[in-house]
């Protein structure tokens, strides 16, 4: 007997899912609802040997995006399996109050993820213009046809330190520019290597303000390359945590 794959949790009065919504697996498993009292889980049959394949990750994301467009959905992390539909219903019943509260808190809210890295040439110009010592050393090395190994190391170390300092400053500056237009901020998963990787919880109706702030950031921090993804299901805000104050807890 195959198990049940869970995409997310919605209110039982969530609008019906569109016909033919394609879930994970190949061929795509049919997406359906498991209802329990005031709640419904968005589920499908789980394929045997489910792995985090590109196609399946995309299907998970698409199901949640589509369902989330119709009403609040608590997105599950990829890969949640229950033994069967009854087990899903039991979990919904057991923690109904908590999930209902979360659904209320996230009603009308979407997540925007913003990642930033430096444009190398632009940040070097910036460092150069801000730091006379770097300018002097660069000029000296140029005059010397590039400079000795030691001189290059000295310049490089100084520049790297300055760029790293800018990374830290720019991460703060970016957050400060965007935060006022969002309801909550969550720092992205650790160690993904961006100078800033932030998720913002944004009221769908106020999304244009947030996106205007992003444009301001692009203009004011022109040496940053920003990647903005959204609107997304509020993955980073489903659970209120100590570092992620969400809504009304």
């Amino acid at each position, binding site marked *: 007997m195959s198990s049940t794959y869970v995409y997310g949790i919605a209110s039982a009065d969530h609008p019906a899912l569109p016909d033919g919504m394609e879930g994970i697996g190949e061929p795509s498993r049919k997406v359906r609802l498991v209802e329990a009292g005031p709640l419904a889980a968005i589920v499908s049959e789980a394929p045997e040997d489910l792995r985090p394949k590109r196609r399946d990750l995309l299907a998970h994301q698409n199901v949640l995006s589509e369902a989330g467009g119709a009403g609040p959905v608590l997105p599950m992390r990829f890969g949640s399996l229950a033994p069967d539909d009854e087990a899903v219903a039991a979990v919904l019943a057991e923690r109904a109050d908590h999930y209902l509260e979360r659904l209320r808190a996230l009603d009308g809210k979407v997540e925007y993820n913003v990642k930033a890295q430096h444009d190398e*040439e632009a940040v070097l110009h910036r460092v*150069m213009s801000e730091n006379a010592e770097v300018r002097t050393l660069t000029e000296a090395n140029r005059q010397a046809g*590039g400079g000795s190994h030691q001189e290059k190391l000295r310049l490089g170390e100084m520049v790297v330190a300055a760029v790293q300092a800018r990374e830290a400053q720019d991460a703060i500056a970016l957050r400060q520019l965007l935060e006022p237009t969002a309801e909550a901020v969550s720092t992205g*998963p650790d160690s993904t290597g961006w100078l800033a990787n932030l998720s913002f919880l944004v009221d*769908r109706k106020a999304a244009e303000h947030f996106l205007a702030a992003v444009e301001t950031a692009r203009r004011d921090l022109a040496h940053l390359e920003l990647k903005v993804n959204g609107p997304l299901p509020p993955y980073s805000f489903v659970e209120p945590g100590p570092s992620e104050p969400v809504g009304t807890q």
Partner: protein
Amino acid sequence: MTVVPAQQSGGGGGTSGLYDVLELVLDRGLVIDAFVRVSLVGIEILKIDIRVVVASVDTYLRFAEACNRLDLEAGPHRSAGLPDLVGGMSGSGSGDKAGDKAGDKKTKGALSGAAETISGAFGQAREEGQAEPKRTRRAPSRRKEEQE
């Protein structure tokens, strides 16, 4: 979804943004301990995708070289947001890129990114049955093209 301005990639089901939201799908979202989670072996490699500057001798030398060839006349007027910058960097810098390649790949990853690791993860995913002719990675230095 309702608001998807041109600059925002994905969210509505496109694949372009998938690589950037992957970590959210895999690392965030509700976890219910009564449910089992599938193994994520093979995708952990995402964790070492580094785009910030890492201090090392190789990086020092590369940045010293980058400063040396920086066109100071262009100065701060050159905006990072201008699309022509991409062409400028990949074109006029091609000789230097070749030099970089001769060096340690990791130094190149300092700013231009180690997107190969993502490619690795997805390459693996593809081997598991995903025939996907489209290149699954965009090197961060090319990411502007993606936005256009």
